[in-house]
Each structure stands twice: as structure tokens, then as C-alpha cells.
């Protein structure tokens, strides 16, 4: 199946969790937050959040600004 992380389409195996998808994408362990289809998923739930085909994942971090 395919998901979209930060606008980039990525093929993943069926049943892939958010934790696995983000690990493969290469996000740092701290200082980031993720939303799936517009809803924030707390880090504690990444392991048990299975992604559906076509899921839109946004992963954000703090940058210089403001």
C-alpha cells in the first residue's frame, strides 16, 4: 500500500504502524510530533497506530521562526 509523509508518497507494507513508517522516513527521536489524516497522534500511541492505505502523515519539528 501507499502512504504520504509530508507530501511525499511512500510505499509501505500493509499493517505498517506509524512508529515504523516514521522510523523508516528517518525522523529524529525527540522534538517532533505527528498527525495522521489531520489528527495528532501522541508519541505513546505511535506503536499501536496502524496506517491505512492512502493515509496522510504530517511530521513537524521546531525550526527558526517568528
Amino acid at each position, binding site marked *: 500500500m501507499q502512504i504520504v509523509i509530508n507530501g511525499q508518497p511512500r510505499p509501505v507494507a500493509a499493517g505498517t504502524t506509524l512508529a515504523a513508517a516514521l522510523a523508516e522516513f528517518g525522523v529524529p527521536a525527540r*522534538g517532533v510530533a505527528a498527525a495522521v489524516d489531520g489528527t*495528532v497522534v501522541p508519541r505513546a500511541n505511535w506503536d499501536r497506530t496502524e496506517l491505512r492505505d492512502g493515509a496522510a502523515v504530517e511530521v513537524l519539528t*521546531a*525550526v527558526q521562526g*517568528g
Partner: protein
Amino acid sequence: MDDPLVIAGREFGSRLITGTGGAANLAVLERALLASGTELTTVAMRRADAGGRTGVLELLQRLGIEALPNTAGCRTAAEAVLTAQLAREALETSWVKLEVVADEDTLLPDPVELLEAAEQLVDEDFTVLAYTNDDPVLARKLEDAGCAAVMPLGSPIGTGLGIRNPHNIEMITARAGVPIVLDAGIGTASDAALAMELGCDAVLLATAVTRADDPERMAAAMRGAVEAGRLAAQAGRIPKRFWAQASSPTTP
């Protein structure tokens, strides 16, 4: 003189809140932050590039400066609320500088979306510092919605045009029940001093320092200006007179 800035029950020794945007690099930013004496500094939330880190959080942590995430770039209440929720998760803070702008040319706050986002975030127990227009009516509504601080602009973001409507700022500060932070438009030190003289509790600025020829020196200037303006506001200025009044004895 012990005169802390208090927002939502938290005390800050410095009344200068800085942004981190616009600095040429982290080393320049570090020197400017140190010179500014700030204890609270904004950061933006952006997509994490695969494997990348920006290092700004680590820098703030090392300097002992609190990071205040903003919702810059958001155009709707829904976007701003989601960004604030992500920031809370990523930075482990429920404080947010709420920013909902209407268009790229003005970067002026969209009052309707801003107020709606403020209400939602307050409902979700965020400590909301709302960036707003220099509109006394909207400022009042944001305070009534439960914002911890209201942050009117002096002029549009990044323009350095100073405070275009000092009377509006004075009307906002005169009847505010929460801290008022002059946010955006500061160009140079006298603008920051004026903001404090108009009764603001603090000044938030970024571009004026980070894009100055010498950011470290300008940061020091802003620190002094905010302190001077605060003292002047508390000291009570003399009334303006039409005719001269001798300051030396008039009898020989």
C-alpha cells in the same frame, strides 16, 4: 528593581521576547539571544525533513531560554489549532503564540479565524499568546476569550515601520487585564522604548535584530530600550506644555 513580567502565573525577568527567524546562522542567533537577555523565544513548526534537525531547540535548551512555538503560516483556525496541538506534542509545552494571517502581502491577522482559534485553544487548555491587529475591540475580545496575553502589532511583520497607531496601542494597554506585548513592526530601539512607554508589558521582535547589520549590538540596544521604556512608563512623564518653563531659578 524587581519587576518581573508575569504571563499566566509565570515570571520572566526580561520583558523582551525574541524570535529566532531571519538569523544568518545559529552562531549569530546565539550571540544575539545572549545580548538580548531574553528568557522566552519563538520558534516555528515545519515539516521535519527526513533525518534532519535544525538545532534551534538544542540551542535554546543550552542557553536556558524557553521555546514558544508559533503557528506562523496558518491561514485558518483549523490549521492553527492543529499546528498548536503538534507543537504541544513536539515541545512538551502548552504555550503557543497564536498567529493566523490573512494574506502574504500584509501578513495581517485574520480577526475572524484568530478569535475562533483562540477560543478553541483555550478550551483545550492551551496558554494562548495571541498575535493580533492594533484593534482595541479585537484585543478585548481575545482577552475575554481567555488569552493569557494579547500581542498587537505596531506595523506589519518584518516592515520595521515601528508603531503606526500609538493611540490604538495606548487604548489597548489602558484597559487590558492581561499582559500586552507589542509584537511586530519594531525597526529600531526607539520603537521598542515607545511600546513600553505606551504601557505595553513586553516587546516581541525578531527581524529588527536578526537582520540588523550587527544583530548582537542591536539585541543589546533593544534590551536597553525595553528597560528604559518600562522605567519611563512607571516614572510618569511630565505633561507636554505649549510654552517654555524655566528649569533654572528665575530670580538672580
